[in-house]
């Protein structure tokens, strides 16, 4: 049970749910059974509908090859020096962490309950493709890699603080860094 980096002790029920979500059996079932995957997807639809509204739109104003690109993850990546996300928070920890562009996989761990981390532990790029982004810059496919990238943990059941505080703060950081494009990746 000690393998979940969290800033507070995780309650038994949540640990069990987390273990199930990360279990080979559940993940195998989701991979092999489209019906089960759709069921899991539909579990989250109701909450999404509650928060849906007008969709904002920022058209691209320069070619991708001249654009600064940032990653935004909800997979719970943190630096080892960071305070972990509070995985026992019933509403979901809405805070974020800043991942510098020169971070290496050895400096990063995952603080998240609800997905199988085993492939990400082998190769972080499967869900936080920072090195791949640098490769795109070297190939001149993108203009530049943003100096700071943002990580949230996605298990948020009450996103009020995310919407009113932390997402706007994170957006301000990326705006400050003159980011043009953001690629958002889940866990």
């Amino acid at each position, binding site marked *: 049970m000690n393998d979940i980096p969290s800033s507070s002790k995780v309650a038994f029920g949540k640990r069990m749910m987390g273990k199930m979500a990360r279990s080979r059996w559940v993940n195998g079932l989701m991979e092999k059974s489209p019906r089960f995957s759709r069921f899991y997807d539909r579990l989250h639809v109701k909450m999404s509908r509650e928060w849906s509204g007008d969709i904002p739109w920022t058209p691209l104003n320069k070619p991708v090859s001249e654009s600064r690109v940032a990653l935004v993850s909800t*997979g719970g990546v943190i630096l080892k020096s960071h305070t972990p996300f509070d995985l026992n928070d019933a509403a979901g920890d809405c805070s974020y962490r800043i991942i510098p562009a020169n971070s290496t996989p050895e400096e990063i761990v995952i603080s998240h309950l609800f*997905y199988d981390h085993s492939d990400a532990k082998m190769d972080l790029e499967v869900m936080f493709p920072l090195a791949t982004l640098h490769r795109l810059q070297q190939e001149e496919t993108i203009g530049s890699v943003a100096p700071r990238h943002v990580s949230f943990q996605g298990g948020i059941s009450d996103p009020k603080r995310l*919407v009113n505080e932390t997402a706007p703060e994170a957006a301000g950081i990326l705006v400050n860094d003159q980011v043009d494009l*953001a690629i*958002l990746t889940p866990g």
Partner: protein
Amino acid sequence: MGLIALELEKRGISTITVTLLPETTQALGVPRSIYFPRKLGNPIGRPNRKEEQLDALKQCLDALVQAKKGEMITGKTTG
């Protein structure tokens, strides 16, 4: 994740939301999204498949350019 995309887009950053849960993403509504039919934990590809991961990011960039407002594109996976 979609809620974060909405905030960034409002602030002038064009976004592409990679999703593994397409119905959830469509129910919320985000500016642009790309669905990869991969397992949770692996939105960008399999471990140590560098070309696969590069291709996934290139598909994200193509989606940024081509998607219309609110559109979800289905990404191609090789494995």
